[in-house]
């Protein structure tokens, strides 16, 4: 599918179908729009390359999911109808913030393996003492930048090691974010599609997110009012599937999207 530029070249997206888009898709960290090729084929949709990934240029500053959602909102404003928004992993964080902050732009939400909240016991750990010492040493000039970088690489995740510059700072920012408050404000139907074997974002995250949504007093009424008969929240578990549901079971994500169109 051909690529199209949006926002004067600040964002690129791949168009599916020939009609007006009704689905907007956001990929995960370190991935790009191509992850959605098995999901969106035959639909009227746009899969975006998020800023700093694929064809889209780097963001000009360190932004979190809210900054990404702002950029997404600018594009969705240009589309005529509210979109079913699909987000995988990091893209799910953006989709949830977008739907909470700009409900008029989002007709429905499909969240796939999205790290929306932190599970108990998975709090952000304080960095080890040696690393903190190296960081302090670098600040006072006793530890070289190269040495500190080696320490960072030794201790960072695969995503952290692969990222550089502004993207590394963005990664640090977003992994420390959670979105319970956004979930509590959603007013559109939500489908969560999760691999039973997702080790990066365990299925428990989906269940706990669904619990928060169930306590959201407006959600049921809003969905009932807008699209009677449609469940407000559904969790779809894909047995035997890992974190990359878009690649391993694209049909299941597609069914969830179609159910909201």
């Amino acid at each position, binding site marked *: 599918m051909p*690529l199209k530029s949006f926002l004067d070249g600040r964002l690129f997206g791949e168009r599916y179908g020939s009609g007006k888009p009704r689905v907007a898709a956001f990929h995960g960290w370190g991935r790009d729009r191509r992850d959605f090729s098995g999901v969106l084929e035959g639909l009227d949709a746009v899969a975006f390359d998020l800023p700093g990934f694929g064809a889209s240029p780097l963001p000009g500053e360190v932004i979190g999911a809210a900054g990404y959602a702002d950029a997404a909102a600018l594009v969705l404003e240009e589309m005529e109808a509210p979109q079913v928004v699909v987000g995988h992993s990091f893209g799910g964080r953006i989709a949830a913030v977008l739907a909470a902050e700009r409900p008029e732009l989002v007709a429905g939400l499909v969240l796939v393996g999205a790290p929306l909240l932190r599970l108990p016991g998975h709090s952000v750990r304080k960095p080890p003492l040696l690393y903190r010492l190296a960081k302090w040493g670098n600040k006072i000039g006793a530890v070289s930048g190269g040495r500190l970088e080696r320490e960072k690489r030794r201790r960072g995740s695969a995503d952290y090691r692969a990222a550089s510059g502004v993207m590394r700072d963005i990664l640090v920012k977003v992994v420390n974010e959670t979105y319970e408050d956004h979930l509590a404000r959603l007013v559109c139907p939500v489908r969560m599609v999760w691999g039973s074997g997702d080790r990066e974002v365990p299925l428990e995250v989906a269940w706990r997110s669904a619990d928060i949504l169930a306590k959201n007093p407006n959600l049921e009424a809003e969905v009932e009012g807008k699209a009677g008969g449609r469940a407000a929240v559904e969790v779809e578990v894909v047995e035997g599937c890992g974190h990359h549901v878009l690649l391993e079971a694209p049909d299941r994500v597609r069914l969830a999207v179609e159910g909201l169109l």
Partner: protein
Amino acid sequence: MTPPAVVFGGPSPEHDISVLTGLQAARLLSEAGRNPTVIYWSKVGRWHQVDPACEAADFAAGPPRKSRELRLVAEPQAGWTARRRSLGVETALLCCHGGPGEDGTLQATLDIAGIRYSGPNAASSALAMDKLAFGALILASGLPGLPRHDVEAGAPPEFPPPYIVKPRFGGSSIGIEVVEDYATAVALAGSSPHMDRGALIEPYLAGGRDLNVAIRTYPRLQLSAIEAPVSDRFYSYREKYLSGGGIEGSERRLPANIPEELEHRIRDMASQVARLAGIRSMARLDFLESEGELWVNEINTIPGSMSLYLWVDPPVSRRQLVLDMVAELEESKARVFSTAGADGAALQSAASIAAKLG
């Protein structure tokens, strides 16, 4: 004779693939008893002598442990040196993909150092890496090529969208995109880090396919079997290299099941291009085919895995292919710079510089 050097890596997006190509060549030469000097060019541009028995993973985080730091001195009788002493490298099998290792930069440096190298000379290397110039050469020679339009021309091309946008310089499919319109092409060329030195637009041929053939020039000009990669029309870097086992692990039909007449045309054109583009050692020539129509697309002067896997018909062993490349290299002559006519007479009779400026 001094053992050949095998050189790989370099500050290029294709650095990692080059490490694989270089280690394969080094291993094949070691097994043949040629005891190569193995030289690694790091991503930050530094030189290291490494053990031929190194594995690819040893390079994942930079130069392997126990590697010896080298310098490349572009002066006669110098070349690669360790602690200011020349290693005495006379011949270099270049396994660098993309960037300065393939675009003529390293080749020109080795010319100055008096070191003979595999692959085309500096000028032909630069020509092959410049898709706009290479495409123009093909068309000017009467061979079939797709029209190529400079993105910075300021107006859309005459052919209709969708377009393929490619970095003007670069050896792999990195950075190539199909775009919906000219505005997207311009925006992409303005923001893609792969297109900071220019970009070009080609028509997108839906339903077209790639057909590739390797060319070697020693002991005589010879063509490999023709391959048809099984995937997208222009298969992405990810598909080509990361989908399992490097470029050799990519899905392909080899030999491609194509009509005899088409094969003849490919072979005829490939031989012409080899001469036109100054091909030496081993190259891979990529064609596009759609409904029987054929276009010369790109030439890769230091192809992934040296295209050793393409030699199934006629069957030539990988070891033999590499040994032949080294034999050709050893028979070649270093570039000699001529100073004929610069005998000082013009200097002696010249007036002062100040008088010339006056």
